């Protein structure tokens, strides 16, 4: 039986796959395979790839990269909580808060909902930090 934290980690990994799809499908439509299948040299593209995307797709691109960062830190938190046998109601709640925040982050970024994007980002960040601190002091 997987712990709640590991279940959430799996779901967060699948969320990243979903985010990749959300970004790459419109990006390929907008840029065309001539650019996306190329080695993406600046000389060939005429600048950076992100600059040539539509506003919404560029936001989804930034949201994807932001989740890579958040996911690495969250993975570490899940690992130390699990292997340190520090799992409790608080760490399980934090894991679910992290996932909920990262799901909400995508539309918040895509639709430019300010300051909600920053607030849900912070909720996920804080939940991860609490998990790390719990593992350390349990």
């Amino acid at each position: 039986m997987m712990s709640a934290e590991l279940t959430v980690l799996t779901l967060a990994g699948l969320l990243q796959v979903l985010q990749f799809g959300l970004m790459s499908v419109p990006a390929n439509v907008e840029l065309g395979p001539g650019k996306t299948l190329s080695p993406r040299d600046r000389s060939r593209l005429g600048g950076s790839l992100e600059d040539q995307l539509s506003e919404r797709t560029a936001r989804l691109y930034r949201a994807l990269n932001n989740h890579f960062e958040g996911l690495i830190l969250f993975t570490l938190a899940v690992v130390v909580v699990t292997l340190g046998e520090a799992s409790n109601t608080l760490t399980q709640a934090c894991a679910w808060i992290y996932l909920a925040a990262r799901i909400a982050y995508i539309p918040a970024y895509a639709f430019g909902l300010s300051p909600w994007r920053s607030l849900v980002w912070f909720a996920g960040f804080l939940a991860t930090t609490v998990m790390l601190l719990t593992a350390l002091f349990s």
Partner: protein
Amino acid sequence: MFGDELTILGLYGLLVVATLLAQATGAMGQLGMGYLLSSRDEGRTAAGMAARLERALANSVTAMALFAPAVLILEARDGFTPLTLACAQIFLLARVVYLPSYAFGVTGLRSLAWSGGFFATVALYFIGLA
């Protein structure tokens, strides 16, 4: 219970958290809270120390992605020894030195600290796979 290497992994996670907070504070000062809360469509870039903290953060995340699996391999194989503990301690110390040496632009020391962390991580892989 925590093995000591796992404590170091947890501490390193908190160091990355601290790096991120420092980077965000610098970006707030230069780019403004209004811009940070917006969708950042303009692609404004920071300069000076705030930009160095941005690069330090990106580098710290890369180091974390490399260090964490090495510790996990050792944990899963019961491979912790005094040598692996020393490597993990060197890694953490090097990364603690790396951050201010990047922020304040101490050429030489930053690269030295980076190398210390990098080769300590590589050593953990060799020990884990041996």
